[in-house]
């Protein structure tokens, strides 16, 4: 589904990604963990070409992202993304937020888009919030709308960048529940997270990133239960 080969990314002199190699299979839930500044977000954003890689290749369904920069809008439709800061559009209602991309990008008829949006809102448990503006929502509700908005484009893979770190603790659960459900329905997901419980329970595979490389990877049991590298152990001892 997604194949990453020797991915490098530098900001000026600062090399943030130093050669990432991995493959994400259809239906897999991959959780990315690691210390702050290790390059997790940058990695995720490269998968979407929100950051342009300095070197390396990314294939989605066998198509090279680097060779098809022109079709980036097409390719991005296959990849949904959810941000730490939600990034809902504040001047649109919840429904308009969700309908925007299907109507403008996929040229879906308004009515169909609306029906779909309402269905997605039901799915994330916010049926009653369709005509409300984002400023009137709680953080957890905002993030669930953001997930619905990404899902409206029927993506083949969903990227989550610390979707719960901007939330008050009592709202983390509701967002994780939605993500868990998505995973169970077979969505391919890459999740950067500090929620080790979620990673352990939902993740098929855990990537531990450190200083721009994937230092260690494995199933949750392997990685949490029996980390091989010293760095991984040090990190886990701090967060668990």
């Amino acid at each position, binding site marked *: 589904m997604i194949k990453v080969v020797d991915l490098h990314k530098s900001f000026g002199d600062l090399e943030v990604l130093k050669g990432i190699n991995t493959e994400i299979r259809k239906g897999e839930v991959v959780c990315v963990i690691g210390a702050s500044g290790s390059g997790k977000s940058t990695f995720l954003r490269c998968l*979407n070409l*929100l950051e342009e890689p300095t070197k390396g290749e990314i294939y989605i369904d066998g198509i090279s992202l680097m060779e098809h920069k022109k079709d980036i*809008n*097409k390719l*991005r*439709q296959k*990849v*949904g*993304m959810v*941000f730490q*800061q939600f*990034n*809902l*559009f*504040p*001047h649109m209602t919840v429904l308009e937020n969700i309908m*925007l*991309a299907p109507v*403008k*990008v*996929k040229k879906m008829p308004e009515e169909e888009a609306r029906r779909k949006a309402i269905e997605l809102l039901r799915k994330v448990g916010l049926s009653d919030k369709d005509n409300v503006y984002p*400023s009137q929502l709680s953080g957890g509700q905002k993030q669930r709308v*953001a997930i619905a*908005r*990404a899902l409206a*484009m029927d993506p083949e893979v969903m990227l989550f960048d610390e979707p719960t770190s901007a939330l008050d603790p009592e709202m983390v659960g509701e967002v994780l529940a939605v993500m868990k459900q998505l995973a169970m329905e077979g969505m391919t997901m890459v999740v950067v997270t500090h929620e080790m419980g979620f990673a352990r329970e939902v993740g098929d595979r855990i990537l531990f990133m450190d200083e721009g490389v994937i230092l260690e990877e494995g199933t949750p049991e392997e990685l949490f239960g029996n980390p091989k590298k010293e760095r991984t152990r040090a990190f886990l001892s701090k967060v668990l």
Partner: protein
Amino acid sequence: MLEGVYRVLSDAIYFNLIREDRYMLFVNGLKVSIQLTVFAAIIGVIIGLLMAIAKLTNNKILNRIATAYTDVIRGTPSVVQLIVIYYAILGSSQLPKLLVASLAFGINSGAYVTELIRAGIQAVDKGQMEAARSLGLSYSQAMRYVIVPQAIKNILPALVSEFIVLLKETAVAGYIALDDLTRAGTIVRGRTFDPYTPFILVALIYLYITSMLTAFMGRLERRLRQSD
């Protein structure tokens, strides 16, 4: 003393307003000033929007053009621009004078609006663009549906303020023989030979309109602040 004051005043009013229906000169002048300002503002906002986007894209040529435009316009007096555009650039275009003047002032205002809009767009959180792009919207779609509407809201009060500036700028329209409000003062002065009154009247009319606009801007600012 009081009688003297009264005489002077009533004479001033009679000669500068009543006789030969001279008040109509002011009324028509005001009409021209307002039309000119409104047209110029519309042109200015359109140019400003385009140039702001040209400044923000990664296209070097567009960047250069937009920068040259704003630098030249903001670096020269509007009177000089008006004269150059009217007599030189659009000289023999045969367009109505009001339109040419609107264009000239619009081109002038556009440079300031460019900076306003650019700042307004840059003030929109970067995450908005990223979210829009990640949904598959193209750059221009993201601009149109997500960024610009939010930027507009940020800069609306500043735009009203620019509108006030523009109204005042148009006072030099007489340079190209457009009978705007200030010109009306000149014409009446030419008829009544009264050096003070016509221009004090003109000043009062401007003052009244700009006060209204300033009050409107204040209310707008408060309204927008509330709606956040």
